[in-house]
């Protein structure tokens, strides 16, 4: 079994790749997928800390895994709402390119 540092490094690497995707890509759906990747990377951090921070009885700290459960639930709701917004945006503007969506001067 690998050490905590290795798990945290993999998690940080996944987070960085997701961040790069959010900054580089122009397709709003791919940007959204990269956001999901960043959320999952944070989940890996939580599970790794839960496994290595064992309690008095020697079992993992299950509060961290319950937090991951809540994060996954919220992420599912977020994806549903976000994709509905993207579909509404596409209906209004006929594009998913963020460079063409500048009416808020972003």
């Amino acid at each position, binding site marked *: 079994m690998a050490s905590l540092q290795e798990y945290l490094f993999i998690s940080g690497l996944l987070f960085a790749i997701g961040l790069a995707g959010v900054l580089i890509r122009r397709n709003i759906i791919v940007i959204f997928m990269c956001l999901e990747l960043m959320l*999952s990377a944070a989940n890996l951090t939580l*599970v790794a800390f839960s496994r290595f921070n064992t309690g*008095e009885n020697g*079992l993992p700290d299950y509060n961290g895994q*319950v937090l991951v459960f809540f994060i996954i639930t919220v992420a599912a709701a977020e994806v549903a709402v976000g994709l509905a917004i993207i579909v509404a945006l596409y209906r209004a503007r006929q594009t998913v390119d963020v460079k063409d969506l500048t009416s808020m001067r972003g």
Partner: protein
Amino acid sequence: MPVFFYAFAAISIVGAIALVCFRNPVSSAISMVGSFVGLAALFIGLNAYFVGIIQILVYAGAIMVLFLFIIMLLDLKAPSTFKRSSPMVIVGGLIIPFTFVIQLSAVLPEVRGGNPQALPLEEAAKGFYDKDRDPDKQSEIYNSLRQKSLPDVNLVGLTLFGHKGDNASIRTPGYNFPLQITGVLLLVATVGVVALSLKKKKSKSGGSES
């Protein structure tokens, strides 16, 4: 040497890089499934079986099917719609995450308590022994721990819903109220999705909305 850890970590990293690099959104979505499956395998390697299965069911199953459905619905798979970002954006988008990784690798050696230890399952079973019950009618958690298997789902459920009495040696504040709030959140999200996807029928000239 943890072979499986490196294999699945490589799968998830390669999948993530492919997600960013592919031009076709469908290919991106498929490579994201690969990345999430690798991540779920990492969860299972961390003895978090419940979270790993949930990761596969929710992310690699439901969410990715939703993404693929939307990509197909909007018909984005033609490569001619791909436009490359400007070089400045690409350079900036690579420098910032790279700086983040460098900072992370500078901080990580300071992390303490990173040595992996096998879980003491049989010793942990003592904390779940209930004196008020017959020795052969103990809880599922106790029996599983005695047989050296980790009752991951039961322990997550115990942490989630709390417990009565002092016989269970697990520390939890009980998450009943956050669970209810999550239910309300899902309901609100459902209503919001329906409200967002309704077509406006009142538009007089038709216009761009239809």
